């Protein structure tokens, strides 16, 4: 990440960290001390999380001061930079990878039987990255064929090996 982007990221992250640390501290203070049970107050559940929350907030504060010193608050968010960010090749690849993987892991699995879900995921993943939408489908039959082969064999092999050879339970 570029240096200027890093200080901006640090600025935003430090604010999140401070907020997070303070939230944890407040939640820890609300935890019961079980005093009514006659238990030693120093064994209360809130002690260590409170200590950690305070420490995280403190470290966040140090980061905040440092990033302000390096002028990280100049976020430079305007229409142009946002558009540049969202149309960059890297962002696109990143988003596709995350979205499709999350859909598979959290939505498909559990609702669709495992081999089918896995096959769909692998097929979709390969096609999204390798299939050229502008070219006609007929010229890309090899890509399609290989994608299907890989998807089906992955689904079958993983299911067979894990379920029957290693006796491990599979999701869905």
């Amino acid at each position, binding site marked *: 990440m570029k240096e200027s982007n890093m200080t901006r990221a640090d600025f935003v992250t430090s604010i999140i960290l401070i907020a997070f640390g303070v939230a*944890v501290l407040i939640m820890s203070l609300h935890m019961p001390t079980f005093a009514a049970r006659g238990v030693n107050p*120093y064994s209360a559940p809130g002690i*260590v999380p409170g200590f950690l929350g305070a420490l995280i907030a403190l470290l*966040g504060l140090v980061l905040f001061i440092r990033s302000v010193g390096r002028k990280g608050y100049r976020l430079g968010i305007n229409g142009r930079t946002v558009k540049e960010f969202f149309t960059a090749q890297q962002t696109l690849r990143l988003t596709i990878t995350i979205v499709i*993987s999350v859909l598979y892991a959290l939505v498909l699995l559990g609702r669709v039987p495992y081999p089918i879900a896995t096959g769909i995921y692998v097929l979709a*993943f*390969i096609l999204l990255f390798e299939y050229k939408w502008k070219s006609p489908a007929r010229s890309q039959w090899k890509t399609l064929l290989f994608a299907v082969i890989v998807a089906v064999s992955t689904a079958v092999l993983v299911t067979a090996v894990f379920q029957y050879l*290693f006796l*491990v339970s*599979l999701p869905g």
Partner: protein
Amino acid sequence: MLEGLHYFAEGLIGFLNFKTLFNVLWATQLGIIVGMLPGLTATMGVALMTTLTFKLDASNAVLILVCMYIGAIYGGSRSAILLNIPGTPANAATAVDGHPLAKQGRAGRAIGIATTGSFIGSFIGMIMLALFTPLIGAFALKFESFEYTWLAIFGIIISGNLTAPKDPLKGWISGFLGLFVAMIGMESIHAFVRFSFGTVGLSGGVALIPAMVGAFGFAEIISVMRHPKFEVVNTKIERVIPSFRDIRVHLKTIVRSGIVGTFIGAVPGVGEDVAAWVSYDMARRSSKDGDKFGTGVVEGLIAAETGNNACVAGAMIPVLSLAIPGSAPAAVLLAAMLIHGVRPGPLIMVEFPDFVFKVVAMVLLASVAMLILGLSLVRLLVKVLLVPRTKLMPIIFTLCVVGSFAIQSRFFDIGVMVIFGVLGFYLREMEYPMAPLVLGIILGGILDQNLRRALVLSDGSILPFFTRPISAVLFLIIAFTMVSRTRWFLRLKAQASNSVRSLLGRSRR
């Protein structure tokens, strides 16, 4: 001492049957392939194997994991040399002199040297593992709650310091966030559920292996897919088996890298990548060809590969003697041991003394297998590197999902994996190291129990934390480590060295 040798021999002979040796071979080979492929790290490999070996008995399971670990750390050197892309972060230093050697047409020689260096490093680490584990275990029996509290914090601080050398603050933040993650769920003294927000999933806590698979597996996949395609350099591979001369000439470098690598492995949370870089750097500074490093100097290559493999055995020293991982893959190894009912920690020398030396035997077997497999089938395995990542990454993600789900059969764990994957990716982009985060998740439980117990014992006084001898030493080391990175201290150091230099200069005249 003799007892140890006895256990070692017993363990080794116990492993010398066809089925076990077959396991050693395929596990090490798979480890080499895992290490070779960018996108799969040693941590991921060991985590996935933990899942696969879930139903096996403890000894066999840990043996397979050790083989996978050693194979993977070595395997990354293959892609580092041939593609200039380290297969695992531990092999980044290998690429610096390994790839230029490949471009000069000496890829085979580079691979042979890397293999031999890795084997010798592993061997040195193994000897130190056998020697130091019982010693440290015996010493750690003196630890009480106060010392364990400091040890947990020390692990985070030093890990943060060494894995984020440019910015230790981020390493510490990473570590303390990890410690916090361990607080989620039911705490062990009053069975009170913390930070669950009413959900059943969070009440069970964040399991280590899904978090690691996410942070090291899914995050890596996202990272790999983000960048445009890389090119495979098609180099001819000639003779792979190294000449004796190469080894003899660099013997001092090899031994030094081995010892340094083991030592760095033994430091909690500081892993093979740091070990490789430090060994490489030390070799560069003390070599007469120092300024030629980076152009294909054999000494640099051998230092890096010896260092990172020695680190593997070194990382197992704290795992066995303190139940604190020396590196990220060692953290998974620790979790696996706990799953299989082996209890590492100071008591291991009392409860399972033979297990420690069985692990030493495992390291030996894995290293020999790595040497044999590494020097053979080289040309065949290079083909594996040609698999396009658009096909490989979804397959790896599938394995990530299975690996996260299999151990507790919870869909929540898959969610944990996904969240830690995305989080881990962005944290890494912002240069927050992952190792302290993972270390924090493991040490969090230790910190929680021991800090509270210590406070109960001292009745709220924090004085014993600073006055007990071992505690005082640990505190001073922590304080020194934190202070040594501030600008104030560095200025002081510069002034001091200047005055010393001028003093010496004057006295010499």
